[in-house]
């Protein structure tokens, strides 16, 4: 027990939690926008994967990390745009289209990795770059806190900034009001001249933007390569984090932190001699438990019943 406590109660572990939470937080923030707009982006996972790949590839080819970032974001946005077009114009089922786009991303990244770089599943021959880390002036000097908060990857700070921006955008601007109106009562919103299609499309694009950044963090920060299916469910975990946390950017960040902590623990548990296959299950088990507790709470408050998938549905 003492050794576990020692591993958990230190500066390095707190630093690791923030690091590991970053991609989940991006996905969760993307999820909250679409949730408020009354739509859902199941393709977050695929968008993250796609962005992770194109970021790595373009940064390796151009040897310019910012071009890599731009390429990753563009590729993720295009996937989100496809989802929006399919769902809003061609009336495709939102969930099935999302699943299909996840499959598309899983297949196309592996395919293009082989075609463009000759690598099978892992980008071994690509000399890709990572985005810089930032040492915060002044804060870095504070004992303990400095070591926890300073020195993170630039996208980690972007994620924290995104919480502020999103909170402002969703709750303090006319656009945010319209977006929430579309989510709460689309017919009423339409009757006062708000285009629900346009708002939902923008919401999907914004979620795509945030998810792309989450994917880029993983392949150009968390590690410095691309490997097949490297997102490993984080997009979905982000969806759950947002659903559990409720309709606020701040609470969503809190939700993401819970799952980030769970994942960080998987690196500590092997100290007890638990096999790595079993510790790898941990984040998914936690997600399952959180999903259950949350569903139960909603049943008690009478908000939720068993549904089937005809018609719009939410998490």
């Amino acid at each position: 027990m003492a050794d576990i406590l020692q591993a958990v109660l230190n500066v390095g572990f707190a630093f690791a939690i923030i690091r590991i939470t970053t991609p989940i937080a991006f996905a969760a923030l993307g999820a909250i926008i679409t949730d408020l707009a009354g739509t859902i982006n199941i393709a977050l996972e695929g968008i993250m994967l796609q962005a992770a790949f194109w970021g790595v590839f373009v940064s390796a080819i151009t040897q310019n990390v910012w071009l890599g970032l731009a390429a990753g974001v563009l590729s993720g946005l295009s996937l989100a745009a496809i989802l929006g077009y399919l769902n809003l114009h061609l009336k495709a089922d939102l969930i099935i289209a999302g699943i299909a786009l996840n499959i598309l991303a899983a297949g196309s990244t592996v395919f293009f990795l082989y075609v463009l770089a000759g690598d099978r599943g892992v980008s071994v021959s690509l000399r890709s770059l990572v985005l810089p880390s930032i040492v915060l002036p002044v804060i870095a000097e504070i004992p303990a806190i400095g070591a926890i908060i300073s020195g993170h990857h630039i996208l980690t700070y972007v994620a924290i900034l995104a919480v502020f921006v999103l909170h402002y955008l969703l709750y303090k601007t006319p656009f945010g009001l319209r977006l929430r109106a579309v989510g709460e009562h689309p017919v009423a919103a339409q009757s006062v001249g708000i285009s629900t299609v346009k708002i939902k499309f923008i919401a999907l694009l914004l979620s795509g933007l945030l998810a792309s950044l989450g994917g880029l963090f993983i392949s150009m920060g968390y590690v410095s390569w691309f490997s097949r299916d490297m997102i490993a469910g984080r997009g979905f975990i982000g969806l759950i984090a947002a659903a559990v946390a409720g309709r606020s950017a701040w609470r969503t960040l809190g939700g993401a932190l819970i799952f980030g902590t769970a994942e960080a623990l998987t690196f500590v548990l092997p100290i007890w001699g638990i096999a790595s296959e079993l510790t790898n299950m941990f984040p998914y088990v936690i997600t399952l438990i959180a999903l259950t507790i949350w569903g139960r709470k909603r049943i008690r408050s009478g908000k939720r019943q068993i549904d089937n998938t005809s018609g719009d549905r939410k998490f």
Partner: protein
Amino acid sequence: MYRVNLFQLLQIVSAILIALIIGLIIIFVVSEEPFRAAYYLLFGPLTRIHRSIEWIHMTIPIIFTGLAVSLVFQAKQFNIGAEGQFLVGAAGATFVALHFPPIGGLHILIIALAAMAGGTLWGAVPGLLKARFAANELVSSLMMNFIGFFLALYLVNHYFRDVQAGFMVSYRFPLTAWLPDLTIRPRLHSGIILAVIAVGLIWYFLYRTKWGYEIRMVGMNLKFAEFGGINVQRVVFYVQALSGGVAGLAGAVELMGVHHRFLWTSMPGLGFDGIIVAILARNHPLGLLFAALFIGYLRTAARLMERRTDVAAEVTIIMQAVVILLVTAEAFLQHWQRRRKEREALLDG
């Protein structure tokens, strides 16, 4: 009951054609030998008898996972957990194959039961969580995939691993755990018969039994089903559990028929093929047979193409995604349908 809708058929055929064209365009852009690659993609499985048999072998597990997914889809519930159920089923099958006394005939039966038990358990979890706690089954079944995958790896690595094999595989199954073959050389195992029987049984179950009726009712109109006295919670639970059992059985058939040892170190993707097949067949068991043959053909052709040319097999995954996207897009081709209806209306008038 089920009438073939001309428009739906047209939509599926044109979706497949468009996907095919996209696939061919990609091949011609990336390949140094595009004609050879296109030849294998289009005709590969038909060029030799053993390749056709590979096609049938490929189709068998997809029929099972497709049946599993479509059962749940019939109740308009979601299920992307067939992948994990397949793997847990396969792990259960491996346990019994290696530890149960090898008695001819009986051995196969018990392996199949063990695999179904494993898959049922894995499917029951999302079903139970949905029925009792209204927990979203899409996410819970996906989480069960990861958990099942790591569980199977754990079991194989720690209990069944053949250390002399050089890579991570289980011990080889005894001969009593092999499915009998239909032909000797090239070998075709009898799993296809089991798959066709399963299609018949599920069809009967869905359209001729009270349980199947309840499942379809919950899918068609949940409120109406409730008013009609159907216990929706119970249906939501048993449809997921049953589906898990079918997907688990797929794992056993695949191991007993083809590999004769547990050998997966990454997810084989057969559960996801099941989703594609179920969507293509609009969840009908008989349509499933054809959809599975199509996806199996594509997979076999892709493998051949990858072995023989410079094009990676994943091009077919891109094609499959395009097919689903177009098939699920309701408004795709609707213009055509509207015009036809207008013409019919004029003629009637």
